[in-house]
C-alpha cells in the first residue's frame, strides 16, 4: 500500500473532489480526529521519540497451562500509522496474539513494549489506561444487547467518566460516518450483521485509539460489505491510526497491498 501523507491539505483536496455537501460530517469528524492524533503524536515524541513503534514484541512465547507453546519466538514491531493483515490457518494463534496485543493476556516469556513501555513493569491498575489507547473489534461484535447502537458506541466514553452531553455530537457524527446515522436508537438484536460490525468498529474508534485491532471483521458479512469495511479501515489508517486486521479471507487481503503477518504453527513470518 502506498503511504499517503495524511495532512489537512490532502483532506481538503479530497473534499474538493467530491461535493462538500456529502463530506461535511466526515470533514468535521476528520479534522477533529486529525487534531487529536496530532496531539497524541506530540505526546509520544516528548516521552519516547518519534522512532518508537507502537508495539514491540521480543522473543515472546506463550503456552496455555502445561500445553505446547501456541506462540513461539515472536519478534516484531507494529509501527505507527501502519496497516497490516494478521493471517494464518484456524488455530494458528491469531486470537491469542490479538489478546497479547490488547494486554489481556500475559506472555509466558519474552518482552512486550506497548507505547514504549515494558508491559511487565506496568502495574495492573494502569492497564485500563493503556487499553484505552487501543481499539478492538471482535468477530462476534460483543455489543451489549440492552443498549442502543448509540449507547453501545458511546460506551468507551461513558466508561471514562465523561458527561453524556459532552460527547453526544461526536458519537452521532461517528455513527453517520460509519453509515449508522439512521440506526442510533435501535437495539443490536435488530441490526444486521454488517450494521453490528460497523457499530462494533465505531465503538472501537470512539475514543480515537492509536491502534485498531480487528478480529475477523469481515467474517460475518458478504463480499461487498467486506470491501466497504476494508475501505473504512483504510480510510482510518490514512487518518493516522495503525490497523491490524486478523483474517483468513485471502480475497480480502488481495485487494490491498499491505504488510502481511502470517502465523503458522506458532511462528510468525512477515511480508512487507
Amino acid at each position: 500500500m502506498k503511504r499517503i501523507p495524511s495532512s489537512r491539505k490532502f483532506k481538503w483536496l479530497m473534499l474538493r473532489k467530491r461535493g462538500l455537501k456529502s463530506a461535511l460530517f466526515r470533514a468535521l469528524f476528520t479534522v477533529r480526529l486529525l487534531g487529536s492524533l496530532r496531539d497524541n503524536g506530540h505526546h509520544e515524541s516528548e516521552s519516547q521519540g518519534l522512532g518508537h513503534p507502537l508495539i514491540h514484541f521480543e522473543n515472546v512465547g506463550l503456552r496455555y497451562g502445561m500445553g505446547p507453546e501456541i506462540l513461539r519466538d515472536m519478534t516484531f514491531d507494529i509501527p505507527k500509522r501502519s496497516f497490516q493483515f494478521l493471517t494464518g490457518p484456524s488455530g494458528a494463534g491469531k486470537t491469542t496474539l490479538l489478546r497479547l496485543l490488547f494486554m489481556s493476556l500475559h506472555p509466558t516469556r519474552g518482552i512486550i513494549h506497548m507505547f514504549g513501555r515494558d508491559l511487565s513493569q506496568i502495574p495492573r491498575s494502569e492497564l485500563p489506561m493503556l487499553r484505552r489507547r487501543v481499539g478492538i473489534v471482535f468477530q462476534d461484535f460483543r455489543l451489549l444487547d440492552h443498549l442502543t447502537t448509540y449507547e453501545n458506541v458511546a460506551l468507551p466514553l461513558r466508561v471514562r467518566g465523561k458527561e453524556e452531553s459532552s460527547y453526544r455530537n461526536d458519537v452521532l457524527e461517528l455513527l453517520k460516518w460509519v453509515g449508522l446515522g439512521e440506526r442510533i436508537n435501535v437495539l443490536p438484536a435488530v441490526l444486521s450483521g454488517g450494521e453490528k460490525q460497523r457499530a462494533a468498529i465505531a465503538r472501537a474508534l470512539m475514543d480515537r485509539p492509536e491502534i485498531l485491532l480487528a478480529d475477523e471483521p469481515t467474517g460475518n458479512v458478504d463480499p461487498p460489505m467486506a470491501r466497504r469495511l476494508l475501505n473504512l479501515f483504510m480510510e482510518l489508517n490514512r487518518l493516522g491510526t495503525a490497523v491490524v486486521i486478523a483474517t483468513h479471507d485471502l480475497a480480502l487481503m488481495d485487494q490491498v497491498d499491505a504488510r502481511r503477518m502470517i502465523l503458522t504453527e506458532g511462528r510468525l513470518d512477515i511480508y512487507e
Partner: protein
Amino acid sequence: MNELSRPKAARAAKPKTPQKGPPQAEPAQKQPRRAEMRVRPTAPILPPSNIQGNALMVVIAIMAFLACLTFGAVTMVRATASSWQSQISREITIQIKPEDGLDMDAALKKARDLALTFVGTREGTIMDETATARLLEPWLGTGLNLADLPVPRLVIITIDEQNPPDFNGMRAQLKTAIPQAFLDDHRTWVDRLVSMAHTTVLIGTGVLVLVFTAMILTVIFATRGALSGNRHIVEVLHFVGAESSFVASEFQKHFLKISMKGSAAGGALAALLFAAANIWQSNSLATPESDQATALFGTFTIGVTGYLGIFATMIVIALLTTLTARFTVMRTIDEIDLIRSDPARSDGLPAS
C-alpha cells in the same frame, strides 16, 4: 486506490439514509433527520431488573424487617426495664417484724423519724393497717384483723435518686434502735432488672449481628451471581478500557437501588407493626388481653428514638449492601482479570 476507497466508504454511509422513507423524497428526509438527533435517556449499563434482583430485594426486606423488629423490641424492653428500675429505686422500705412486747406503732414512727434524719431522704409514709390489709388481700382474703396476725409492717421512704442516703449507716442505726427493723433498699431487684435489661440488649445485639451477617453473605452471593450473570458485560467493559472501580460503581448503583427499596419496605413494615400494636394497646386498654400483653412486653411505645433507630437501621442496611457489593465486585473483577491474563490457568478463560 484512494479514489476507489473514498466513494465506497461514502456509499457505505449513504445507502442507509433512504431506508426509512423509500419513495417520498423530501418529507421523508426531514423527518428522520429530526428524529435521529433525539437519543433516549441513557440506559444503565447493567440491565435494571431481573428475577434475581427481585428475590434479593425480598430477602433484604425480610432482613431489614427482622433487624428493625429486633431493634424495636430491644428499645422497648430497655424502656420498660428502666422505668421499673427508676420507680423502684426511688424508694426504700423499712420492714418491722412483730414481736411480743413490741409497740408496733411507736416502732414504726421511730423508724420513720430515724430514717428521715439522714440526708437524701425526702418523705416517710407508714403503711397503715388498711393498706397492709389490702396488700395481703390476695393471699389472706378480706375482713382481716391485723391485730390477730403477726404481720410485718412497712415504712416507705422516698429518696433523692441523685443523692441517695447512706444505706449502711441507716441500717446499722436502725438495728441498734429497733432490732426487729429491716431495711430493704431493693438493690437485689434493681440489680436483677439491670442485668435483665443488659441481657435483653445483648441478645438483641446478637440477633442484629446475625441478621447483618446473613445479609452481607446474601449480598455477596447475589453480587457474585449478578457478576457471573453479567459476565459478558464485565468483559465488554474491560475491553473498552473500564477500570474496576468504574465497573464496581455500576454494580453498586444497581445494588443500592435494590437494597434501598428492600430495606425501606422492611423497615416501614416493622414501624407499621409497632404503630399498629401501640394503637391496639391504647384502644383496648384495661382488657385482659391487653394487660397480659403489657405484662409480657411492656407498652408498645418505641418513641421517636425507636422510629429514628428503625430509619437508621434502614440506612445502615442500604450502606452495608452497597459497600459489600462494591468490595465483592472489585475483588471478583481483579480475580477475573488475573485468571484471564494468566496463560497458565485456563479455568476462567473467556470465550475468545
